[in-house]
C-alpha cells in the first residue's frame, strides 16, 4: 500500500508538468508506457526533488558508453540486491 498520494499527471502544471511530459515520452519509447510511472508520480509533491532525480536519470541512464540493455541489467541486479520489488 502506497504511503503517499501519487500525483495525478493530468492535474500538474509548470515544472512538474514539463518533467512528467518528458518522463512519459521516454517511458513510452522504452517500454510502451501509457502513463507516467508511479516512481515519478510519487516525487511530484516536491518538484525540485523530481527535477534533480530526472536530470540524474537522464545523465546516468541515457548518456554514456553502455547500451540501454547493459544499464538495465545492472539496474535490475542492484534493485534485487537492494531488495526492492518495484
Amino acid at each position, binding site marked *: *500500500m*502506497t*504511503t*503517499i498520494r*501519487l500525483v495525478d499527471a493530468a492535474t500538474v502544471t509548470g515544472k512538474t508538468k514539463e518533467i512528467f511530459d518528458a518522463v512519459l515520452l521516454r517511458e513510452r519509447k*522504452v*517500454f*510502451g*508506457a501509457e*502513463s507516467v*510511472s*508511479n*516512481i515519478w508520480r*510519487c*516525487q511530484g509533491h516536491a518538484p525540485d526533488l523530481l527535477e534533480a*532525480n530526472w536530470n*540524474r*536519470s537522464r*545523465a*546516468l*541512464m541515457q548518456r*554514456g*558508453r*553502455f547500451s*540501454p*540493455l*547493459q*544499464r*538495465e*541489467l*545492472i*539496474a*535490475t*541486479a*542492484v*534493485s*534485487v*540486491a*537492494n*531488495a*526492492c*520489488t*518495484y
Partner: protein
Amino acid sequence: MRLGVDEVGVTELMGVTEHTRAMATTAAALLLDSLETGRPLIAPLDVPASGDVSAIVDEIRAWSAAALGSPDVPLLWRILARNPHYLESTWRKETAVMAAGALGAHDKRRVALGVAMAVRGRYMIEYNAAILRRSGDDDRDILEVLGVVDHYTTLNTLSEGMQIDSDIRPQSV
C-alpha cells in the same frame, strides 16, 4: 526486465546477482578488506597446494593469470581451499554463473561489480573491478557502473520508503 531479455537471460542475471551477493557476504565474513591487504578470519592455504585441492587451485591460478594478470591465487579462494568441497562447489559455480550465455561475460562482470557496490562489499568490488580493467574497462566505464548503482539506490529507496506499487510490467508477460 523491459528490454527484450528472455527467461534464460533473466535467470542468468539473477544467478550473477545472488552469486555476487553471496560472495560479498563470504568475503566480509572472512574479514577480507581488499585484494591486497587484511587479516582474514581464517588463514589462507599456502600455495602450491597439495592433495584434494591441488587441481582446483591450479585451475584458479591459471584463470587468475589471464583474468587478473597475476599468477597469485586470490585470497578468498585460498581460504575456501581449507575445505575442498566448499572450494570446488563455489569455484564451479563461479565459472558457470559468470560464463557467457544468453548474456555476455563482460556484461555479467559489470553486473557483478554493480551488485558488489550496492552491498558495499569492498573485496568483491576490487575483485570484479580488477577483472573488468584487465579486460579493457577504464575509469569512465567503472564510473558508469557506479552511476547506475547510485541512481537505482535512489529509486529503490524512494519506492520502498513510500511503498510504491509496481506499475511496470514486462511487455512479453
